């Protein structure tokens, strides 16, 4: 089954890290991605630009509203995703637990619609 792991973390935390810490952080994500690829579970992954770059669009009553900023203003922000293909929810949850974001934020695990 395919699962999308969405990563929610506090962006402010990243900004406060030293160069060395950032390096370590990146290395942890690289290692996680590599492990996913090794196991054959990896389908896709991306990191998002900070929420300061986000713009929100909504069409209501025929009028397009464009707003500066992210959809949800919360303590932790959507910062990236992994798309994986594994046998079942338990396998997806164990990958989510290994994802570095789970240790400094939250990882949401959701199955994709099977088409």
């Amino acid at each position, binding site marked *: *089954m395919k699962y999308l792991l969405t990563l929610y973390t506090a962006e402010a935390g990243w900004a406060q890290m030293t160069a060395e810490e950032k390096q370590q952080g990146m290395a942890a994500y690289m290692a996680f991605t590599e492990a996913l690829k090794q196991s054959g579970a990896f389908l896709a992954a991306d990191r998002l630009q900070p929420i300061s770059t986000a713009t929100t669009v909504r069409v209501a009553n025929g009028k397009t509203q464009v707003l500066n900023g992210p959809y949800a203003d919360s303590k932790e922000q959507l910062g990236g995703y992994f798309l994986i293909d594994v*046998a079942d*929810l338990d396998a997806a949850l164990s990958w989510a637990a290994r994802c570095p974001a789970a240790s400094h934020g939250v990882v949401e695990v959701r*199955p994709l619609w*099977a*088409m």
Partner: protein
Amino acid sequence: MGDVKSTQSTDTSAVARSTADEVARRSYGKLIAYLASRTRDVAGAEDALSEAFASALADWPKNGCPASPEAWLLTAARRKMIDASRRQRTGALAADELRILADLEIAGAAHELPDDRLALLFVCSHPAIDSAVRAPLMLQVVLGLDAATIASAFLVSPVSMGQRLVRAKNKIRQAGIPFRIPEREQLAERLEAVLDAIYAAFAEGWTDPAGTDAARRDLSQEALFLGRLVTELLPDEPEALGLQALMLYAESRRLARRDSRGEYVPLAQQDCSLWDVPMIEQAEAFLVRAGELITRSTHSIGRYQLEAALQSAHAHRTRSGLNNWDAVVQLYDGLLAASQSPVVAINRALAVAQLHGPEAGLSEIRKLQADARLTEYQPYWAAVAELLAKTGAREEASKAYEIAIGLERDPAVRRFLQRKSEHL
């Protein structure tokens, strides 16, 4: 002639019905587990099996009961799942599901049917399932209880119970919760969730101590059945044995919890001749076996074993008249360290009062005042009231009794507290 015929058909119908009832009792959970474990479609398996039972009641009176009713029902249910899959699903999904269903092997005899019930119990208490719905889900899926019966036992409306069950079953299928026994490293944690759900079902049955509400009385029996099932399928798990011991100790006193007028009788005043002694012996045996496993392994003693050990100590004291309050306090210490539960702390304070006097008990219980969870917890106020009364603080005791009475939902316990308050 006509009369004879109709008598015959009544007979064969009655035989068919009693065979079907017997199979349902014996194998319902096994059949559901078998049908659902491959497709993860619990609701689909339930629907198909219920249709299969209906077909059986139409077919068996005419053609006779099959040699293996389980195999007959499984074959019929599989056909119905295939039909449903053709109707409801399209494309690759339908092809997948149809292939899975076609591959289902159907064994001849009941004892050849693989027993996937344990996996089903783990599915029902998976961390991805809302913890409040785990016990109801088990009762429905493994034992076949209907939503209305479960709803009334859990004091929830049948409609909302039905919705919760449907949501949970959808989640099992859509989120891909696996039908298997967790790996060794996860087993203890996941088993705890299974045991908690079984105990929740038992506790709901237990809140009807008089056994007047059939739905609830049965729930204790169903929980004991599930507990026994887990001990049979995982015989070396001490906590599963501990839970079974705990439930058996509680159940053994059911008759003694109310007097002939239906009034509540606290443990210390119960007539132990009303206790079910063979059941207490069974409980002891489970607890002893758990203890043996603990000493042979790296397991640490768990909450259910400690609670069962406490029950054992209380039962022993009441039957023998020997004072063992220091052992009881020690067990509560262990339980408190394991659970950090304020409920345990209250009971511990009462045991301390037995050992060192009411002032000592009160000073223990006052340490809990800051816990907001206790402001609406009847046993906390009843314990405070009892200890205050023993120290002679009648006015304060009376206030505490009033709060306790206001928080209690069982009228017999309410009357018991009222009598205590009046006799201050």
